[in-house]
């Protein structure tokens, strides 16, 4: 996190400079469309936030009305009774594990592909990267049985390992390209000084690759946090261990039977706010992290 903050500070002024030079003539036409889309993007989310304070009568009678009071008990009910708190914790545990595994395995494999020459290197590389072309749906049925036979069905380690596996192709692809851009001379100097290969990686190369690691880390964090299809197949059995995305889907379905609309809106808000808050704080890193892979 400190790494992110350090990088966050100097970025904005540089990027905004060309815009600050001249505003030009404000154009009503273009502003109209831009504002309309901004409204279209934010309003549904804002509506969910406002509705999370309403009681069920207010929600049912007037969808555009304002809440009579700030009813945080909706939030409390969603947090405890709808188990949003529990699901939050579960997601945090799973993503911590899966992200660590992805970054460790992705960085080590990519480093070897980028910096070392050995037999079948190309074969192994394309084996990894080729995984990007396959839709995850193709793997679902056999994957279910592979995970079950490994005794990992309905377990967190099972999810962590599987998330990591399906993130490796893109992570390896991205980081291999990144490690290749690092200067060769530094590594050679370190080796000449008697630095071992392992030390070279952890002490020299990994710190130099930090910008790339942060970009792909953000990308993987969001895709793991938002993962739905994999847990839906591999974590069907034990409801107490399900992740947040599943919990919200369950809440959305059960809300239809129980008519607890305020609980649903509160649950959605609780799930949305932290992600949006983190995004607003680190918007530049997150935007470039998510788009970097496509610009390569």
């Amino acid at each position: 996190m400190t790494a992110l903050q350090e990088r966050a500070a100097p970025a904005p002024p540089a990027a905004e400079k060309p815009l600050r030079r001249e505003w030009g003539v404000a154009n009503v036409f273009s502003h109209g469309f831009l504002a309309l889309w901004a409204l279209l993007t934010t309003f549904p989310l804002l509506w969910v936030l406002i509705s999370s304070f309403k009681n069920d009568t207010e929600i049912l009678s007037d969808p555009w009305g304002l809440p009579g009071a700030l009813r945080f008990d909706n939030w409390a009910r969603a947090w405890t009774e709808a188990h949003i708190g529990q699901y939050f914790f579960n997601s945090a545990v799973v993503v911590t594990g899966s992200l660590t595994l992805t970054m460790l395995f992705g960085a080590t494999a990519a480093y070897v592909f980028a910096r070392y020459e050995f037999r079948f290197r190309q074969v192994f590389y394309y084996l990894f990267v080729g995984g990007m072309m396959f839709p995850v749906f193709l793997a679902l049925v056999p994957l279910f049985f592979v995970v079950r036979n490994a005794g990992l069905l309905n377990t967190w380690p099972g999810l962590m390992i599987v998330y990591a596996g399906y993130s490796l192709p893109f992570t390896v692809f991205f980081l291999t390209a990144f490690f290749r851009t690092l200067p060769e001379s530094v590594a050679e100097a370190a080796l000449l000084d008697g630095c071992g290969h392992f030390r070279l990686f952890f002490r020299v190369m990994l710190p130099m690759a930090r910008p790339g690691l942060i970009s792909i880390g953000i990308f993987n964090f969001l895709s793991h946090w938002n993962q739905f299809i994999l847990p839906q197949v591999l974590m069907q059995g034990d409801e107490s261990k399900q992740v947040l995305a599943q919990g919200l889907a369950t809440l959305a379905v059960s809300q239809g039977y129980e008519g607890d609309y305020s609980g649903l809106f509160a649950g959605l808000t609780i799930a949305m706010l932290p992600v949006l808050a983190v995004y607003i704080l680190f918007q530049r890193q997150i935007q470039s992290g998510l788009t970097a892979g496509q610009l390569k």
Partner: protein
Amino acid sequence: MRHGKYPLIVAFLVPPLLLYGVFVLSPYVQAFQISTTDWGGYTADANYVGFDNFTRLFRDDYVWNAIQNNAILLAVVPLVTIALGLFFATMLNMGGRGGKAGVTGVRGTAAYRLVYFFPQVLSVVIIAVVWREVYHPNNGLLNGLLKPLGIDGPTWLGDPRYAFWCVLAVMVWSNVGFYVVLFGAAMQAIPRDIYEAVLLDGASRFVTLVRITIPLLWDTVQVAWIYLAIAALDGFILVQLMTDGGPNHSSDVIGLRMYNTAFASDTRFGYASAIGVVMFFLTLSVAVLALRASKRDRIEYS
């Protein structure tokens, strides 16, 4: 010099390779094999049936119905998303024209870019549930807007005429922001003096966009096209959570068909894997076609 590199290569490559081989590669390979069996349940035997699943699949109206919906998504979503993305990115990065600098963004560009990207960081599950409530026939945002205008709004997701298009709209909604940022970043890399020259020649904004910006952004547009095409062949989460393929299969997609065949209403693993194989070849051919169709000479500015 390089002695002692093999311990590192082995230690760094073998664990990821094992994990990847067991949990990713082997399922993909097995899927092709399972698709040629009649495996129909957790305990049932799997018999080799050759291409029976595939011939059945070609006569399966539900599958064709789903594929047809994916085809509509494929035709509409990339086109509309890229058009809107280019439009907004142009406005943001060179909308405010007329100053001495020639080409600048409009006021508040940073704020717009911040807001447009919101759907990208939210999980598709949240987006699906939010929009399900927006479309809700009685207490939804949309019909709540129409009511005071004296319009009795339709049931949206409950109406087979509209359900699919409602999901399609959400798919566009959730993607546009990402491409505004992506195209915007690419536009920033275009040298400003190109625009200043065009401006001096008196070109209109539309001509500038079509003749200058889009050709210079072509690589990025091509990537966008491929990603959106692949996304259009999916659509599983939005459809499952918003309509579950209904009403009356009107909004079904191929991914949902596959999921339901294997894990929900049925456990026909052989048949589901065959659908998965078809999805793979569809994805592959769409990616290759998109690459081919959009192939142009690369423009490099130095």
